[in-house]
């Protein structure tokens, strides 16, 4: 199982899913209509490191963070 958490304004509780790669996570999240509006604007972190490759391999206990558009300052 891996954990997916949704940061900032997304307002969705963390979920636990089965996934071997980030592609599997994408497939799962697209099934959720609430997430569909967010995904094209969101960046992704794996265990608090930003990731940019859909092929990234996941292991048991990994934590994915979904980061919506930011505006610090």
């Amino acid at each position: 199982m891996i954990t997916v958490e949704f940061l900032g304004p997304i307002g969705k509780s963390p979920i636990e899913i089965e996934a071997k790669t980030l592609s599997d996570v994408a497939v799962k999240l697209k099934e959720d209509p609430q997430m569909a509006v967010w995904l094209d604007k969101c960046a992704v972190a794996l265990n608090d490191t930003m990731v940019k490759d859909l092929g990234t391999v996941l292991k048991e206990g990994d934590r994915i963070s979904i980061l919506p558009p930011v505006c610090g300052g």
Partner: protein
Amino acid sequence: MELYQGPLEVKEIFARWLDEEAASNYGAYIPFVGTIRAEDGIEALSFDIYEPILRSWFENWQERAKARGAIVKMAHSIGDVPVHTSSYVSAVFSPKRRVALELIEEFVEDFKANAPIWKYDIKEGKRIYAADRSTPMDGAGLLA
């Protein structure tokens, strides 16, 4: 890197950073102070921060600054910050002015684009995500 609940004590931060580097022989110190403007009827802005990734972002910037002989510092608010108070102070110290002027611009612009901080307007007590002023981070859309 310093995070505070509510508005920043800007004068204290400016003075303390100056003192911290008083003997470091830097010739240029450029702080950037961000203050909440009264506009669109807001009472305050409010901020969520994801601290682990903000810390790595900042550590990466410390390395980038060090490679140019400079250092960076920053402070940011968490939660509500009323209009006309400050939510953000960052600063560059460097031996010479050119590097300091270049770095403060790069540091502040990258902060706006990639620091994991989310901003909300506070209007009539409601907390509304500032979607129209927010920027997708580098690499956004990976899962779309």
